[in-house]
Each structure stands twice: as C-alpha cells, then as structure tokens.
C-alpha cells in the first residue's frame, strides 16, 4: 500500500502551486531592515521559529498549511525549526497575552543575531478583535521591534508565502 502511494506520487508530478508574487508592500517595509552583512551571511535560506503569543490558533492552522504539498514552503529555502537558537526569523501570532509576554521576550533573547520578527495576522498587528483587553498587551510591536506584518484573519497560505518571499528577497539581494 505504501509502495502504491509512493509510486503514484513519484509518477504523478508535483502538486505544488506556482509561487505567488512577492508582496511589494512587504518589500518596501523590509527594505530598511536588512543590511548587507546579514544578506551575505544568510544567503537564500531562512530558519523560522513560530511563536504563538496567544492566538486563537487560526493563524497556526494556516502556517501549518505552508508545509503541505500544495504550498511546500521548503522549496523557497524557508523552514521551520524547533528552537529559537536555530532561528533567523521569529514568526509571531496573537494579540500577545500578558501571560505570554515573558515567554515571547525570552524566545527573542534566545534567538541569535541577525534576526527578524514577522508579526502574522491582525491580532499580532494591534490586538485585532482582542484589542483593548486587559489580559492582552496588544500587538507584537508592543513587546518586540517588528520587521514585517502579514495581515489577515488569518492570512491565507498564499498571503503568508508572499510576505515570507519578500523577506527572502530582501535578505538575499
């Protein structure tokens, strides 16, 4: 059974979607953030550490989808890593709850330089529907300097890819 499935996958050709266009707005936002030295060091690969700072889990579902066979994030040189110590990029979701603030700060401190912070989703931008809650800090930029926002509730995998590709472009050109 495994053999049959694998055979079909081998001969059936890739299911991957074509790469989405690089997000121009994201490129502009990033232009100022990426210097030549870090470009040289990283080449075209970026390791991403995802941090859920209190999201509803909607953003995580779509970030997960980046790894499925249709979006296949790794073909762009981007991959998710298990530890902030291996990461170049922190991908942060959620309105940053008070209960997650310290963990987010410690994750950032554990990430080696050069590093970028990408805030994913409307909550991560400004708290989203949870803005004003006494239990939330309200947006990632209240805790860390944010290099790129990818809006949406949640952003689709294509929107996530467009934003992340802009990051790769900025880092590698």
């Amino acid at each position, binding site marked *: 059974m495994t053999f049959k499935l694998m055979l079909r996958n081998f001969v059936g050709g890739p299911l991957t979607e074509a790469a989405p266009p690089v997000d121009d707005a994201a490129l502009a936002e990033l232009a100022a953030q990426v210097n030549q030295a870090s470009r040289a060091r990283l080449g075209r690969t970026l390791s991403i550490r995802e*941090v859920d700072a209190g999201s509803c*889990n*909607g953003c995580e579902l779509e970030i997960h989808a980046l790894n499925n066979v249709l979006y296949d994030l790794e073909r762009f040189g981007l991959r998710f890593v298990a530890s*902030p110590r291996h990461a170049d990029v922190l991908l942060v979701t959620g309105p940053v709850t008070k209960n997650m603030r310290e963990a987010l700060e410690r994750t950032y401190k554990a990430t080696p330089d050069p590093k970028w912070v990408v805030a994913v989703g409307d909550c991560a931008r400004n708290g989203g529907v*949870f803005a004003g809650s006494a239990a939330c800090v309200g947006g990632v930029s209240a805790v860390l300097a944010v290099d790129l926002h990818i809006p949406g509730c949640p952003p689709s995998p294509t929107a996530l890819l467009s934003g992340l590709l802009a990051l790769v472009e900025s880092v590698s050109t």
Partner: protein
Amino acid sequence: MDWTPSIVNRQGWEQAAASLQRGEQSLLSLWGEPGVAHLALIESNKISLFRFDCAAGVFPSVGRLHPPAIRLERAMQDLAGLQAEGAPDSRPWLRHAGPYPFLPAEGESLHQIPVGPVHAGIIEPGHFRFTANGETVVRLEARLGYAHKGIDALMAGASLERAASLAGRVSGDSTVAYAIAFAQAVENALGAPVPARALWLRALAAELERLANHLGDIGAVCNDASFSIMHASCGLLREHVLLAANACFGHRLMMDVVVPGGLRSDLAPEGARELNALLAFIRRRFPELVDLYDNTASLKDRTVGTGILSHALAQQFAAGGYVGRASGRHFDARRTPGYAPYGTLQFEVPSVQAGDVNARVWIRIREVEQSLALVEQILAGLPSGASHSALPTARSTSEGVALVEGFRGDIFAWVRIGSDGRVERCHLRDPSWFQWPLLEAAIEGNIVADFPLCNKSFNCSYSGHDL
C-alpha cells in the same frame, strides 16, 4: 433548546453537586459573574441551569464532590472573583501572577521535565510538567492559561455582531461550531426564528470543519509516530476541504459565516459543484489511507495500547467528542439534546471501548465517513429560501443556552442579553475543559516519548480553554 432555570439556595446548590458526584447528571459547565455562580447540568437530554446568588463572593465548592469542576472553579476565581468554599485546589489558573506551585511527586529516582509554553512545533502555548521515573511518566501536570485573552470581559457589553465575531475566535479550529453555539444561544434568548436554509447551511459548514480537522489530526497523529506519508496525504485532503470551504463561503476556515439569525452570506453559486468534486476526491483517496494506517504494523505498534483512557474517567468527566467516544461514552450533542437539521439527517455516532490512541484515530476515521455522508445529504436536501432573518428587538433581559457538537466535542454556550440588545454576559465552555485533565490520566505509565502521540490524539484546545 429547552432548559430549566432555577435559583437555588445553598442546599439546592449542594444537592446539584451531590447529584454530579453520584453520576446521576453530567456537568456541562460552571461559571461566574460578580456575585452570582452558575451551574449547568445535563441528565439524558434535559439541561438544567442553577443560579446561586452569593453577594459575598463565596459559593459552596462543586469540585469538592466532583473533581471535573475544580479547574472551572479556579477560573471563576480568576475571572469573576468568586471563591469556592472548601475547594480542593485554590491555585490561580487563567491569571498568571508569580511562581506557580506544581503538585508534588515524590519518590526515589524521579526527575522532572518542564516543557513549554513555547513548544518545538507550531503549537499553541501551554506548559507541561512531567515527573518521570526513567522513561516512564509518573505524573503529568499541565499549566494552562497562556492564551488567556480576556474573552469573558470583552463579551460583557458587546454588540451581538461583535460578540459573534469574538465567539468565532475563541478557538480558530472550531470557529464554525463556536459561531453556531453563540448564534443558537442568542436565538434561544430572543426567541428568534431561523430560516431552514440557514440551519442546513450551518450544518454544512460544521461538517466541513469536522472533516478538515479530523483529516488533519489523523495525519498529524501518524506524523508523531514518524509516519510522514500519512501526514502528507491527509494534509492534501485537508487542504482540499479548506479550498472548497473558501469557494463555498469565501473564507478557508469559514470565520464569520454564521451569525445570529442565520448566515452572513449564502452558499456561493458554484458551491454545490465544488463540494461534489470534494466528496468524490476524498472518497477516492481516503479509503487507501485508512488501509495504509490499518496495515502498517510499525505504526499500529505505536498507537495500539498507548495512552489508554478508562471508560469510568471519560464518563465522570463527561468527556465529549472522540475522547469520550473512544472510551465508550456515547454522547453527541447533534443527537442529545440535538438540533436542526440533524434530526432529519441519517448518521451514526461511532463509539468504541478501547480508549487508546488507536481508538481515537478510528473514531475520527469513522466520523470522516459520516461527515462525507452528511455533506452529501445536506446538498441533496438543502431547502430554498432566505438564509438570514432579522432578529427580534430585545425588550427585556433574556437568557439563552446552546449545546453544539464541534469536531472536538460539545461546546456549551450561555448568553444573557440586556434590554438594550447588547450582551450582558456570555460564557463559552470548550470541550477541552473536561479533556485536558484526562490527558494527564491517560499518559500515566506511558513513556515520555509517547506524549506527543497521546497529546495529538486528544488535540485539546489551548485557546478555547484559556478564553
């Protein structure tokens, strides 16, 4: 939804708690607001609500007699400032302040493994404290609340539109089920009629959500046993469900589609065609994946006999969804108390006794098959007409209740609407409240390396629980 409200004194409250202890009723939820404690129970298909006025902020502990209530009481203390008198555990739960004393585990050769709140994968935040003897887990204690966003407080005073949007973001993977639960509670409070077409389309969205989550989970459980071809193949099926959902309702997760009074937008014109193609695709691909799961000995070796949850605990904690049904608790809110249109649809509620990871995978497999059949029936029988009707104006304070079957289990919703038509208070209880403690029981005696497998087979919600 029929339910009986009663305002009880101390004796009545304690009698209700004692009936839980004797197993005569199941706990639906326990929640508070300043000066009032609320308790919701279900016996066969009869829901009762108890209200205990406690101006001094103290009520008799239910958790003292019925352990599933303990964490809810701790949350009441955090969110409403109510104290459970005689409670076995008074540590804060959703509000984090200062060091947290974990429960002791003492003995020779024990060591602790702290994990989280930031995990290695793309997972919600939570902390797990393992005490292990070599490889064997002696005790697991979860500390949750990291995703606590203050939803109860945001709900108070919100317009119905804003509250519906918040309800749809309590747990993103169950956005449809939460939106239905909130909408039903509002409609119940206001006595609002809902067009038949809206009810059917809600069920359609709910079954698509169930399909997407179950397909994702079946693959993810296998992935945690390092069997990645299942993960890749199930991930493709899940993605097709989300693409179809997007084509039908304009949002991949179907957020904000369900609103009080009906649906925000009707099924897209090409929806039925997309869904028929989806059904054909899944029916062609899924059976071979089920065969693959069933015939891969090295995978079954990991899932069979791992993380066993006893029937007694599933029953005591009124565990909903696949967690309950894999341990012989045959409960499904679509049947009991039930809501339209499920009474007119043919479907089975699968249930097995084994209670292990394998059983929780099989319940999902069977539910995928049932949901496919439900989507087909809904498409065939979809009534015509409007998909939304205006809500009647609120004239006085009113309360409403709903119990809705999400993919994870039954979601309980209670809302009180003021005479100004805004939400006065709203309480949403995720199925995970009664499943998280059972994960701690199921992992006992298993090896640490099997925790991801057990955890994924439960797939409890952090955000839904943390509110």
